[in-house]
């Protein structure tokens, strides 16, 4: 994934933040995804306006871990969300509008 040109967007699925964690419901698959605090924050940031790079920057400013670790985890997590069809990933250059 080119993290500067990939813009993840949450699908319209039921979800809810509970304290710092979150739950996402895949109604079609009949599955419930519990997200820890980092996962919940990444999920919230997948708004289609931020690139993966920008999401990593926000998360790195809020959680105590190296940016390299956060980048690796965030990219893997977003790819898993995309595999589960819970986010779509638009590819465009920064500054391009949707």
């Amino acid at each position, binding site marked *: 994934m080119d993290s500067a040109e990939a813009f993840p967007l949450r699908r319209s699925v039921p979800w*809810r933040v*509970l304290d710092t964690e979150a739950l996402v419901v895949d109604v079609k698959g009949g599955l419930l995804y519990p997200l820890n605090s980092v996962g919940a924050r990444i999920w919230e940031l997948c708004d289609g306006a931020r690139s993966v790079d920008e999401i990593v920057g926000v998360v790195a400013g809020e959680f105590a871990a190296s940016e390299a670790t956060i980048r690796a985890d965030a990219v893997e997590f977003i790819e898993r969300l995309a595999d589960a069809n819970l986010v779509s990933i638009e590819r465009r250059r920064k500054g391009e509008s949707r």
Partner: protein
Amino acid sequence: MVFRVTGLGAPERRWAEERYAPFVSRRAPSVTVEVAATERYRPGRAPRPVATWSNGHFALASYPSRADGDLARRRVRFRVGPGPALNPELFRLLCGFLLMREGGFLLHASAVVDHGRAWAFSGPSASGKTTIAGLAGDRQVLNDETVAFRPVPGGFTACATPFYGSGGPTMARANARAPLRALCFLRKADRFAHRRLTPAEVVARAFPEVMLPKRDPRVAERLLASLAALAEATPVYELAFAPRAELWDYLDGLG
């Protein structure tokens, strides 16, 4: 909630009033169910039960019976085939929709009233719901399989339902309710232990045990909100328990 059932002949009415007593009454109902025996079995494989809900109007189908209505008008039509005049599966879904309108839900759970407040026990089949109901002694059992939760200021109320489990009809004798003291998700063990669950754990554990068509996104959205409210207002535990009467002393000690 109390239901009035119309449109039945005398034998079917007797069956419904016996099966669902004391939740069926001819007077002062919460909802009127008009039953019409119009559907017939057709050869072939039965389709899966379906349910749709939109702006208070709902439609349910559990072959060969169907139900639809406007919950705001508190009037529902059941078109039924051969078999029970009030298909229990449809009736349970109807109750689930009625509760959903007020932020409540039907949970796969047993509940026992102790010192005026209800302990509810949830979990999948064979987790111990009926076992605990059987340990109630003189305490009132609200149900051993299905309990209604209704929001009230400051918490939730646990209400009896007519949808009993392997404990049989004796587990659904009274249309009673009590303020909810706590909800426990059960695990059978040799000794007692407990752990308080986080709000996210509460919702994740309760969601699969709620009796509603959760593949409808609007239903799932509402249910997440109701369960979040429960998690905020009520202590919820994971409870490992041994099937012994000391259970009630142990629960007393949870504070």
